[in-house]
Each structure stands twice: as C-alpha cells, then as structure tokens.
C-alpha cells in the first residue's frame, strides 16, 4: 500500500471530521442537512462513494440514525452527523444503539437552543450528551475537540473506542469548530490493523448454524436488568480507563478555569490576559465529557482557591464540576447563551472579581 504523505491542509472542522472518517475506513455515512454541520454531509456526498464507502442522504435525522443502527448491526464502521435539533430527533435511535451495543460514531455540531434557536455556536446540549440523552440507563463516550486538528484526531479515536467497547461515541463540537478553518495534518492510520472483528454478533447472514439477533427488547424485568448490569459494568470500565483531559498552568494556579471545546480556547486567551496582570490562573480542560474527570478536578481543589467554569450555555458542565468539588472550594460560573460566544475580556472581568471576592455566589 502506498503511504500517504502527511501534508498540512487548511480545512473546516466539519470537513476534517469527514476526511478523517474516510481515512479511518468508514463504510457508510447517513445524514440529513442542518446548519452548521452541512459541510460534513456535503464532503461525504462528494467523496465517500468513490473512496470505498456508501453515502446516503436520509429523509430525516430519525431515518438517518436508524440506518446507522442497521448498518452498525452488520458490524460495519458507520457514522452520522447533525446539529442540535437533529440530535434531539436522533435520541430514540441512539438509545436503541446503546442498548444493542452497536459501535458507531455520532457527531453533534451544536447550535444555540432551545427550540429552533439559532445557527450560531453553543454548548447547550451538554446534559443531553453526557447524561444519556434518550430514554433508559445508558451513556455515550463523549469527546470534546477544541481545534480542527482534534476534530480529525478524535474521529479516529472515536471509531476505535466505539469498536473496542461496542458503544456509540459522540464527538460534541459546536458551530464555530465546524465552520472555522485551521491547519490540520491527518495522522497515518492503518485501517486493516485497527479493524475489529465483529463477526461473532453482527447480522451478516446466518452462518455455522448460529442465528444472530440484534434486539433491545428483553421483556422480562430480570433479563432486562442483566442487560443493564452489563452496560453499567462496561461504563465503569470506560470510566476507569478512558478519562482524558488537559491541564495548563495549574501548578501555581490560585484560580482554576474549567472549560471544554471552543470555550476552553477562549478561556485560554483569558488566562493569558490574566497572567499578564499577575493573576495566577490555570486552565483545566476535560477532553472526555463522559467519562468526566471528577477525580482529577477534585485533586486540584487541594491547590486552587476557587474555580470558574466557562461554558456557552446557562450552566451545565458546572453541575458536574460542583459534584467533583463539593464544598471544598467555591465554584463560579460564566456563560453566554443562544449562540453568543463569551469574550476573553468578559472572562477576565470575572476572574478579576473572583480574585477580590472568591466566595461562592448563591446558586439556590
């Protein structure tokens, strides 16, 4: 096989995911147009059929996610992508996919809600992404890239984790990450070496006398509980092994910023501005939102005086931060909603205020 030269390309985040997915050997992509993720769908439509896969534009997000169910049930590498309202429509199907333990990659390029909302970037689908989203006890592995490069990297990672744990993996991005261009280098990826054999359970036609059935119906409560126990065991395993995060300047930090995705980039800028003023600020960035780095954040409470969580929503991840921190240090929140992006200067203002009065604001 001819080795591809890894070249630096200027690309939109949406396109980077599509290109990485094709390089990771995605066999089928099913999707439906919605701003701000449509470039992903369009890239797939232009490229996938001639590069070894199948592209199909579905009649709705509901149909798309169920096509993913069907194709993933055959043990093939499959994916879909959408933006917030479309992701809501997919929730039923995702619950089935999680229950049936079908590996697949999902992408939500978030926009501001609720309702039809706006097409501008937001992070207001955090709860939906990390707490299950659909009905029943399940979780997705949730990866939160903060650059176009990571949009590509996490696509490979997402497929691999999906295969390894037989579970749906979600890339939780936002409109800005999807639309912006940054340089990206596609790492080498050996499709053959990374291929996981799903033939023991996939429905590909009955062979060797054994019928394979993909189902999520286990009508006897005791049997359904066994399925649930198995899923929970898998999630515990994921929580043990797959937590990813990035800590910046936390060693001497007095105020710790916690942010993920695009807001972690903005928070980093605010950190630079604050450091220029002599304020000792650090940044902790969860990369996996599920599993969430509770322990790692809790450990940092021994060092820092207070925490400021920055999000593009009304305060969602901050609940997990408070769960991690308890009463150990005050936890503050700064967020903008509806597609408005918080500015570094606004965060700096908040940092200044906390440095003077670090006690917790009343939340209830």
């Amino acid at each position, binding site marked *: 096989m001819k080795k591809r030269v890894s070249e630096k390309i200027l690309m939109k985040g949406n396109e980077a995911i599509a290109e990485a997915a094709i390089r990771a050997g995605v066999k089928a992509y099913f999707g439906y147009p919605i701003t701000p993720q449509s470039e992903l769908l369009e890239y797939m439509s232009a490229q996938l059929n001639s590069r070894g896969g199948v592209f199909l534009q579905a009649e709705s997000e509901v149909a798309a996610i169920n096509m993913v169910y069907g194709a993933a049930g055959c043990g093939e590498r499959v994916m879909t992508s959408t933006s917030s309202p479309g992701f809501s429509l997919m929730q039923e199907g995702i619950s089935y996919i999680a229950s049936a333990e079908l590996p697949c990659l999902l992408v939500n390029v978030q926009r501001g809600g609720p309702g039809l909302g706006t097409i*501008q970037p937001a992070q207001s689908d955090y709860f939906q992404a990390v707490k299950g989203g659909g009905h029943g006890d399940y979780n997705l592995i949730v990866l939160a890239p903060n650059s176009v490069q990571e949009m590509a990297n996490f696509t490979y990672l997402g497929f691999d984790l999906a295969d390894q744990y037989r579970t749906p993996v979600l890339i939780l991005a936002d409109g800005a990450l999807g*639309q912006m261009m940054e*340089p990206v280098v596609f790492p080498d990826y050996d499709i053959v070496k990374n291929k996981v054999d799903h033939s023991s359970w996939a429905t590909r036609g009955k062979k060797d006398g054994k019928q394979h059935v993909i189902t999520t119906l286990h009508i006897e409560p005791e049997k359904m509980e066994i399925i649930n126990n198995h899923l929970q065991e898998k999630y515990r395993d994921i929580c043990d092994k797959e937590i990813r995060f990035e800590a910046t300047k936390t060693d001497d930090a007095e105020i710790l910023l916690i942010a993920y995705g695009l807001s972690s980039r903005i928070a980093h800028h605010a950190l630079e501005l604050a450091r220029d003023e002599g304020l000792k600020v650090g940044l902790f960035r969860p990369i996996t939102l599920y599993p969430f780095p509770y322990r790692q954040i809790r450990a940092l409470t021994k060092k820092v005086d207070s925490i400021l969580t920055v999000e593009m929503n009304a305060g969602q991840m901050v609940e997990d931060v408070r769960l991690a921190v308890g009463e150990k240090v005050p936890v503050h929140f700064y967020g903008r909603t509806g597609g408005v992006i918080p500015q570094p200067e606004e965060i700096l203002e908040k940092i200044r205020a906390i440095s003077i009065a670090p006690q917790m604001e009343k939340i209830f």
Partner: protein
Amino acid sequence: MKQEIVIAGFGGQGVLSMGMTLAYGGMVENKDVSWMPSYGPEMRGGTANCTVILNDEKISSPIINSFDTAIILNQPSMAKFESKVKPGGQIIYESNNILTPPTRSDITILDIPANKEAVKLNIKRVMNMIILGTYLGLNPVLKIESILKALTKVLPGRHHHLIPINQQALERGMELATQPTIM
C-alpha cells in the same frame, strides 16, 4: 508577531476567499492560522465577514472581538466594525462602497478605490486581491510568493489560469499602499 484581521462586506465581494487566501498564505510560512467565517443567512446576499488570525506562536482563541486591521467593503460593516479596531490599528476600506467614512482619529484609515482599479485591470472580480495587496503593502507579514501559493489552494483548478491576473491585482494593491490617501 500576531495579526488579527476582520474582513467584511457583501456576499459575493470575495470576503471569505480573501480571508482564506490570507490564512493559507500564513500557513505556507508556517504560522499558526485560523479563519472564522460568519455563516448562515448572512451568506445569502446579506453581509458576510470572516476573521483571520496569523500568529508565530500557537493561537489560543479563534474568537476575537477586537482587531488590528478591519478591511471593510460595505457600509453596514463599517457601522459594525469601526469601533472594534484596536487603538493604533487600521481600517482599509473600498471607496465606492462607503458613503460615510469612519471618524475615529486613533487609528490609521485608508481609502482604496479597488473597484475602479479592478475595472482598469479589466476584471472586476480581483477587487478583493487589490485590497489584500494593499493590506500586505502596509503590513509586510507575508511574502507575495506565499499568497500566490495560497491561491493555488484556494482557487479551484479551473480558475488557476487567473493566478497571473490575481498577481497583477495584488501588486497594484501594494502600489496603492505606498501612496494612500490617509485621512
């Protein structure tokens, strides 16, 4: 060295592609770059803008609210971005499209008749390259070779024969930068 630029005008004036060319040129010179477009209904006939960051170091936030340079191609964008230029920064605007010029006195303001010049070059669509030339003439952050290389990436293959005329436009823009009508 960090450059934060906003380019704004009507859809169809080449706003997004100008920014893309600049970003690609920065990447050719191994800078960290980002290009962030406005998107959605604004792309369909209304105003369009993009921000470009060129940095010798890693870019932290691709989202910025104040700019070293604003390149303004229509009146609504002037209203939107004049106040967002950093003190000591610059506004480069296209003469034909601006009836009410900016009034700030703490920034450099350049009025470039890029439309007229494009007509002189006999191809209207290079207006954006003339303005880009002016920007590079004033801010020699990138070599013209890098921009030409960028054009091979930004322009679809069927338009590569237009690169020489784009080069002419860039050079004309750079000339205009040396004889600006500073207000």
